């Protein structure tokens, strides 16, 4: 199978499991379908040459975050309620918002001048899509010389060092905040 057909199979699986995620009555089933979506997205990341992100996706999202969700669902003993889908007006609104947003997002590719025409296969005047973006060719060459993880580590610890350090403060604040909020008494 070519990479394209694998991508379409995985993409279809991701779409179906995402739909089942929002339509399942039971929150536990919903969470498990979301895990399925995240796993197929991780496989798609491998196809898109982002192996490190795929590993992080499985470890952090499908592992840690979703276990937290399942833990809370089971702690609160949910899942035996009646259906929690909203009534007919909200369903009509959901379909309208979804169709409008999807149309907007798809239309964006058509009306954005120049920058996205690269994706269609070529910029006028450029032989390869990469020539429109010099940084892109450097980025693609980096994994060959540094390995997959080293290629991401270089921008992360050089260009984006300050945001990376601020992230640690964010995580500390989130951990302290979660403990304070979930505590019965201060």
């Amino acid at each position, binding site marked *: 199978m070519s990479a394209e057909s694998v991508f379409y199979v995985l993409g279809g699986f991701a779409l179906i499991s995402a739909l089942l995620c*929002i339509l399942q009555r039971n929150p536990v089933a919903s969470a498990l379908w979301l895990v399925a979506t995240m796993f197929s997205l991780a496989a798609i990341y491998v196809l898109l040459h*982002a192996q490190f992100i795929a590993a992080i996706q499985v470890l952090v999202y499908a592992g840690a975050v979703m276990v937290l969700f399942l833990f809370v669902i089971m702690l609160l003993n*949910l899942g035996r309620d009646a259906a929690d*889908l909203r009534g007919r007006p*909200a369903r009509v609104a959901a379909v309208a918002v979804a169709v409008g947003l999807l149309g907007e997002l798809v239309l964006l590719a058509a009306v954005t001048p120049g920058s996205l025409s690269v994706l269609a296969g070529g910029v006028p005047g450029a032989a390869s899509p990469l020539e429109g973006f010099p940084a892109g060719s450097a980025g693609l060459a980096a994994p060959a010389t540094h390995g997959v993880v080293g290629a991401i580590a270089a921008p992360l610890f050089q260009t984006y060092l300050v945001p990376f350090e601020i992230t640690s403060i964010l*995580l500390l604040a989130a951990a302290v905040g979660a403990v304070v909020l979930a505590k019965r008494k201060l």
Partner: protein
Amino acid sequence: MLIGPALLLSALLFTIGVAGVVLRRNAIVLFMCVELMLNAVNLSFVALSQVLGLGGQVMVFFVMTVAAAEAAVGLAIILAIFRHTRTVDLKNINLLQG
């Protein structure tokens, strides 16, 4: 490179996430729909990082960190609300409706 199909898949997943937020009343499922939207954005970051450089993958890294922090704080808030109202159904959480 598969950039066009990946962006389309990302748009579809984001739309499903938005529809879920509008459609569901369970606060935890609402949070899961937000996670789905964040994942859709991550997919478009990864797809475009093939052309625009590895900065996109670094952004995915940051989005995942913020999503983890958001999940921790959000679920703690849901726990606190559940302790007061004994439900996570948004129909019954209407203190601001006057």
